[in-house]
């Protein structure tokens, strides 16, 4: 299983700080699709992804037990 963390407004859209989902053997892009199917109001288009606190691309593979975080870039200042 994999823990998926949501930051900022993504957390509000999902309604949870994290979810647990089985994404091992899938790519980041696959996981995004899985999340979108479950939570239709989430926008993951521009988010940054970290796997175990390391930057990940859409085609990076997720392994069993890895923790994923979705972090939306914000622009206020």
């Amino acid at each position, binding site marked *: 299983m994999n823990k998926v963390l949501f930051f*900022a407004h993504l957390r509000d859209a999902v309604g949870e700080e994290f979810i647990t989902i089985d994404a091992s053997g899938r790519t980041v892009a696959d996981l995004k699709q899985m999340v979108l199917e479950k939570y239709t109001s989430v926008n993951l288009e*521009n988010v940054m992804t970290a796997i175990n606190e390391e930057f990940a691309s859409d085609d990076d593979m997720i392994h069993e037990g890895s923790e994923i975080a979705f972090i939306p870039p914000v*622009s*206020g200042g």
Partner: protein
Amino acid sequence: MDERYSRQTLFSPIGKAGQEKIRSKHILMIGAGALGSGNAEILTRAGVGRLTIVDRDYVEASNLQRQQLYTEQDVEEKLPKAAAAAKRLRKINSDVEIEAVITDATPEKLEELIQGVDLIIDATDNFETRMAINDVSQKYQIPWIYGACVGSFGMSLTILPGKTPCLNCILKKIPIQGMTCDTGGIIAPTVQMVISHQSAEALKILVEDWEAVRTSFVSFDLWRNQYTSMKVSKAKDAGCLSCGENRTYPYLDSENMTKSTVLCGRDTVQIRPPRQQNIQLNDLSLQLKELGYKVKGNPYLLSVEIDEQRLVIFNDGRALIHGTNDLTQAKSIYQRLLG
């Protein structure tokens, strides 16, 4: 001078040698809002040699909750932020040469302002300017520090040309509809936390303690008690158009910038984003209504009243700002609401 900076020079990573380095450096601060105010105050107190502070807006009442350099009098006088900031900073530390530049930080302007600068601090409120800062930083090999916040959420990244990935490596393109303080609100502690990250990084760079520079992308939520530090070294992209082998600095090209045009005789400015967007008008309408804006709309457009102006936004991202002929003011209103 010795007494003034004694507590800072007692801190061993700075020391007397570090203080002399700080004194010899020139910082370019892009933006004089919340992040700009706080970073500018810390670095002015730290005794930097020269600080250039750039901003296109004037002080408004809604700034006072978090923009620490400004007063009610600045609001009454509608002082430009750069000028109000410089006035206050000169009172804080007369050792520092402070320069106020009241202008829109366009790519052209950035290339002019970066001459002789040692470090750029991002205190802007939009990604278009940040991507231009990112390109100009790569072109002239000057480090910059990204910082941003909304609500209780904030983030920062230090970019050292030739060493770390750049913002374009990480984001790949300008994010659309990034949340801004005008749409998502903001609490002052979030601002201060981003300022702390940015100004600590700034001090490391000023004293040239390169080993100490943070190489991860930090983000945190002070209300939800989340903190994460994402390693980004593998994001460095040899094909990146901003820092890669065949770089073109795309964000210094005016073709990629938001276009604003005054519509003749209509007291209206049209703003067109560089790429066609797909804005969820319903979501935006709800957000703006929650914040107390008067919003009317139909499936094709939203009309929002902002003080004396009215902004009409279409779902492809194009907007008309009625009630002004001032391109900079119109672009500022647009980016405040749409990031």
